[in-house]
């Protein structure tokens, strides 16, 4: 029977009203939303108030999308250096000497200890280096990070395993995300989004950013700061590093590190009170202050080397012991450079270099134009379809049109709750679902017409139309859903936005085209008692 029980009507209407209410915050701009949230009396529980809104994609609001990749080579180089230092320390502790020093091999280091007794002393200590991967407490056994191979003639090779490197990359991404967050927190209203993507990537999205040059400069530096001393003539343990304010000429710098970036507690851009040059003021923590104080006391008159990412950025002469724990970096810097330097120092060093593998920037003008064009296309498509459905199915077309409007409203409602991102392809998705949403209604109406012609009574024709068309509706929507779901998992950014809209559209169309239309037709039948189909 063509009946809709009272409870079913209430349930249907309630779901639709809630769904539409959820879309309300998305219809407001930021200020209106704030005002509306403030206007809600405080005794209303906040979870009852729809407050979430759709997020506009960067292609609509303008902004920068930068995909960074942790440089695995750079990371491995750093890890091998650490391994080398560890091996050197162990050799020294155990008083064992390697015949040809510590050789670097791909992914690791090699030493040669021919004496068996020496090896017996050495091996247990070396084995400590091959820590198991993962958290032992969580029982995540995954092999060892470092593999140790020994040949009978005493060649010992320590190499990072594949799993070990992957683990380091994973950790490096985690650390990098934190550092990136501190570096690009511009402190404005823009809220950058920073997410891990895949195994070794970080996706940074900054709405409203027009020229990501500063961002790229900030993220392009590892930010590894070291305070060392310029080597005196004849010193042996030195690195030859390029000196910035002498056109990149290489100067000898002692290997010993007095203090490093990790010892800083603060760094601020400032101007020198005498020369009015831009400088960076910094403050050490207790450990850094002690070591720096001691070193400057002992090396009065010598030149300090302030090394950033293996470049000497400044080499001031130590005029007096610096024991107060604070100091300044001066050099021939521009204001922008000291600003960036201060941010780099405050944020700490990246565990490895980050490479930009993809960049997409949309200016605010294009975003605005896209929104405008998307709106126009949506309205026009809506009007086309509404007129067309009404012209074809009359009153039933009107029912379908109401269902269509609710359908679009519900897509916005669902997207608001999910705080989904609306992109330009997403708008295309909405326009496309306007066309396909009425498909279900068309299927039902054509079926009703057919059943009526075949001699059924009106009620039974409507009933049969809905029932028989339903299987086809499920079928045809599932096929669309298959494509949409694959697209969702495959695509990123804008394309994914399209898939989201499409999937939600398929879900809501079943509610609106089937349940809501059926309810309207049932009510119409009960009130009007019509004798013939209106189309």
């Amino acid at each position, binding site marked *: 029977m063509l009946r809709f029980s009272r409870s079913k009507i209430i349930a249907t209407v309630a779901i639709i009203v809630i769904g539409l209410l959820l879309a309300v915050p998305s219809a407001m701009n930021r200020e209106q939303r704030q005002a509306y949230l403030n206007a809600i009396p405080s005794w209303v529980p906040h979870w009852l108030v729809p407050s979430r809104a759709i997020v506009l994609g960067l292609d609509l609001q303008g902004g920068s999308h930068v995909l960074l990749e942790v440089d695995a080579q750079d990371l491995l180089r750093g890890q091998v250096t650490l391994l080398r230092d560890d091996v050197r320390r162990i050799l020294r502790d155990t008083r064992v000497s390697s015949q040809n020093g510590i050789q670097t091999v791909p992914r690791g280091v090699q030493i040669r200890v021919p004496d068996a007794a020496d090896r017996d002393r050495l091996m247990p200590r070396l084995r400590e280096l091959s820590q198991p991967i993962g958290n032992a407490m969580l029982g995540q056994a995954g092999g060892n990070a470092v593999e140790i191979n020994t040949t009978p003639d005493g060649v010992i090779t320590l190499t990072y395993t594949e799993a070990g490197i992957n683990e380091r990359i994973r950790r490096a991404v985690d650390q990098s995300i934190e550092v990136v967050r501190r570096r690009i927190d511009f402190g404005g209203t823009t809220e950058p989004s920073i997410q891990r993507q895949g195994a070794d990537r970080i996706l940074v999205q900054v709405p409203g950013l027009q020229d990501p040059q500063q961002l790229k400069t900030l993220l392009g530096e590892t930010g590894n700061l070291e305070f060392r001393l310029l080597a005196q003539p004849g010193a042996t343990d030195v690195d030859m590093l390029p000196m910035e304010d002498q056109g990149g000429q290489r100067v000898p710098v002692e290997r010993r590190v007095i203090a490093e970036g990790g010892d800083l507690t603060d760094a601020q851009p400032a101007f020198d009170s005498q020369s009015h040059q831009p400088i960076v003021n910094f403050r050490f923590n207790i450990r850094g202050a002690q070591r720096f104080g001691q070193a400057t006391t002992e090396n009065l008159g010598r030149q300090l080397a302030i090394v950033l990412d293996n470049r000497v950025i400044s080499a001031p002469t130590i005029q007096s012991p610096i024991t107060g724990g604070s100091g300044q970096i001066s050099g021939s810097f521009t204001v922008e450079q000291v600003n960036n330097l201060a941010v780099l120092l405050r944020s700490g060093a990246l565990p490895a270099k980050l490479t930009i593998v993809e960049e997409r920037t949309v200016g605010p003008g294009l975003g605005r134009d896209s929104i405008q064009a998307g709106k126009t*296309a949506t309205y026009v498509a809506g009007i086309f379809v509404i007129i067309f459905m009404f012209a074809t199915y009359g009153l039933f077309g009107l029912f379908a049109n109401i269902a269509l409007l609710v359908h679009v409203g519900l897509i916005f409602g669902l997207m608001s709750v999910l705080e989904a991102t609306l992109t330009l392809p997403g708008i*295309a998705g909405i326009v*496309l679902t306007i066309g396909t949403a*009425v498909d279900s209604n068309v299927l039902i109406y054509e079926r009703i017409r057919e059943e009526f012609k075949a001699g059924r009574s009106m009620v039974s024709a409507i009933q049969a139309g809905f029932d028989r068309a339903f299987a086809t509706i499920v079928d045809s929507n599932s096929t669309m859903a*298959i494509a949409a779901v694959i697209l969702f998992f495959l695509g990123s950014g804008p394309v994914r936005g399209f898939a989201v809209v499409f999937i939600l559209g398929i879900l809501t169309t079943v509610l609106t085209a089937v349940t809501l239309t059926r309810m309207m037709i049932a009510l119409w039948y009960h009130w009007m008692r019509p004798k013939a189909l209106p189309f």
Partner: protein
Amino acid sequence: MRLVRLWPENSHFDFMRFRRFSFPLSAVISILTALMLFSGGLNFGIDFRGGTLMEIQAKSGQANVGQIRQTAEGFGFGDVEVQEFGAAGEVSLRFPIQSGGEAAQAAVVQKARDTFGNDYEFRRVETVGPRVSGELVQSGTIGVVLSVIAVLFYLWFRFERELAIASIIGTLHDIVLTIGFFVITRHEFNMTSIAAILTIVGYSLNETVVVFDRTRELMRRYKTMPAEELLNLSINHTMSRTVMTAATTALSLLALVLFGGQAIQGFAQVMLYGVVICTYSAICISSPMLIYIGLRGSETVKVPEGSRAAAAE
């Protein structure tokens, strides 16, 4: 009020006759597409080819394309494609991928911003490095292949074998013809195009499924009707719905083509073409295909015991 009817009631049109034209036509177009694909190929966008794309707009409203081209070629970043598009002095520049790995791409953007920044507004800048473009090619291909496989499984569970084979042929046909559209029109082929192809796969199947649902229903009702007649009947029964849905979808897409803006136009055009192709293939390819694959063979497999005895009589 007189209501519009796009398709006459009680039509008895002989759709199956079309196959004499549609089969050779589609075969020729498919072969041509394949040939052109291997000779000329697709006009890959930077998603798949890597490189840098910039869309700039003259602040004065008047772009000097010749000068931009000359300046940009002087950068020494390889062959640059400069094109005017849209309305008010909008120009797109496309630089090829730079050798020297991921970091080398950034130099292109910097140089262009420094050079044109004063007179032009940078509306869009996209740089895709070699690694990402390689991955996008991979995931795009996987996506299309996966969708075909997923659809195959769906059809396998949902339909008899013969119907499933016929619909998958129709879907493959639509994919090939869509790619043909890209080859012939030189439309840029990028990640959005993959989205369009996947949507067309969904729509193609949707069209076929609606017809075949009816075919199956009629097969049970008219157990002895010849395949050709049965298929004609199924299409005639569903034709008014097919026309209506194609019309509403095409109207929406037309709105997108006309008003959706340049950024989405390509997608909308492909989809509009896809709707036409899918409708055509459901009627003129997948359905008549069943005449050759054999329609009744399936009945002995799926129809319940009792009715099978009846059918055998």
